[in-house]
């Protein structure tokens, strides 16, 4: 890896698709399941996470030569917590209703394993420019995942999208979609879909069909 020339574009794209934090790395499941009962909540959460991730990746990358290895995790957490506080107060000031619905999950961004993971795995070893692009890609990938889950759950659970009613008065809401099981079921199906896509790609890439449980995995 170290010998390969890293360029900003690949770092940006990999987070959105190939290394998508949710569908490929299965990180950040807590906000993923908890706040995606409507598209607006999902989008707000995604935006807050994007801000926190990009800003803290930048700072961590700047300070990567100053932070002692032994206390690096606590340093990252303090930096992340600073930006989470900023995001929390900003949301409270400008979109108080959404902030109220997100509840504890805005402060909990600090514990999002995806954010700490990026600091440890990328920002602390790369230049600020690359770190920002990596963070942007990861955050956009996270946002995309949140949004797809939020849209599916809002459409089925309340028959609307971003608050606009889609099906009129007589819509029969799928109550379960707004509840935690709906989050798990939708996420499960999305993971299934992405694994299936990956499997298809691997199948078409190699002519030799790998034996064993690959066939079972794909379904």
């Amino acid at each position: 890896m170290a010998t390969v020339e890293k360029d900003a574009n690949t770092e940006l794209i990999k987070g959105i698709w190939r290394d998508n934090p949710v569908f490929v790395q299965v990180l950040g499941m807590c906000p993923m399941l908890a706040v995606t009962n409507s598209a607006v909540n999902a989008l707000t959460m995604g935006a807050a996470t994007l801000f926190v991730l990009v800003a803290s990746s930048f700072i961590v990358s700047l300070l990567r030569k100053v932070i002692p290895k032994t206390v690096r995790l606590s340093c990252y957490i303090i930096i992340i917590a600073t930006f989470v506080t900023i995001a929390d107060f900003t949301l409270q000031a400008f979109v108080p209703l959404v902030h109220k619905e997100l509840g504890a999950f805005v402060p909990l961004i600090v514990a999002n394993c995806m954010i700490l993971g990026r600091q440890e795995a990328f920002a602390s070893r790369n230049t600020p420019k690359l770190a920002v692009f990596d963070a942007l890609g990861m955050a956009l990938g996270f946002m995309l995942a949140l949004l797809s889950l939020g849209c599916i759950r809002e459409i089925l659970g309340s028959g609307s999208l971003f608050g606009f009613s889609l099906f009129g008065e007589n819509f029969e809401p799928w109550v379960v979609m707004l509840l935690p099981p709906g989050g798990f079921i939708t996420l499960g199906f999305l993971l299934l879909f992405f694994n299936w896509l990956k499997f298809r790609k691997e199948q078409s890439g190699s002519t030799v069909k790998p034996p064993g449980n690959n066939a079972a995995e794909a379904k």
Partner: protein
Amino acid sequence: MNKDPKLLVQAPPLLRQQLTTPSAMRDVIYALCPIIFASCLLFGSSALLILLVTVAGAVITEYLFPLNGKRGESLHDGSAVLTGLILALTLPPSLPLWIAFLGGVASIALGKLVWGGLGQNLFNPALVGRAFLMASFPTAMTTWSTEDLKQGFFDIQSSNFALPLMQGQIDGITAATPLGQMKFEQQATAFDQLFWGNTTGSLGETSAALIILAAVFLLWRRIFDWRIPASILLTVAAFSSLFYFYDPVRFPDPLFTLLSGGLLFGVIFMASDPVSSPLTTKGTWLFGIGIGVLVVLIRLFGGFPEGVMYAILLMNAATPLIDRISQPTVFGHGRSATHSRHTP
């Protein structure tokens, strides 16, 4: 027959008779035939349509996502059809058809395929489908209409034809099932109505007589372990008698508890599912007692009038645990081998 307990072979009866999966499934479908026929007579063509659509949902899902081998191969054992039929018989007659279809899809996809197919599922697939519908559409799943029973054979309720994603507008006014009447109005339904099935309720659950007939047939064919229904029904009878003798005004009598709602149907067709019930004799009794206690507790003290579905699903979840603690002593070993860690 050898009565030596050390040589007792503990396996479900179907192994003793060397039945195949398809023939067992076929026998259960035969047992369901009178119930299906009666539900069509009672609830009109609405029942027939719901049955067809639910089975279609189950079969199409099974066909589209083959776990191994060719498409459609896994349909030959008849389990998808059976799951669809059993699920349909637990649905209310006025349910919109698109919901019934979705139920069939959910029971196969969430109840069977995600676990790895027939034999791997922890829960009874039909009940998973029903639980999914109950959690998704609680109103539609518990709406019973006065029109349900007044249908001629060729009348179909208009709510069946609600467009996908839309609510069904039921004809007539809503009515309560015998259990609902008991729970909310303390009004018991007459014994003969419960026995012959002339009451509101899900398609297949109303007639105790036909379900008992089916049970006798299945027991004769040795499709399921008699201990499961016996232990559940005995527990329900005993446990509900306890409450009835404590306060006969507030609590229903045991006979009503046994005959009303989905208890008999659930016990015969869902709890005794060989895949999701324990394998050992002792475990089977524990399983049945657990279901019986939960049914009575949910019915008498829970928020829902009916608790058979949740009772069976909860005990399904406990099945691996029950199997583990009820392992028989290994032949040739002392008692210390009973709790061997090498349980499957």
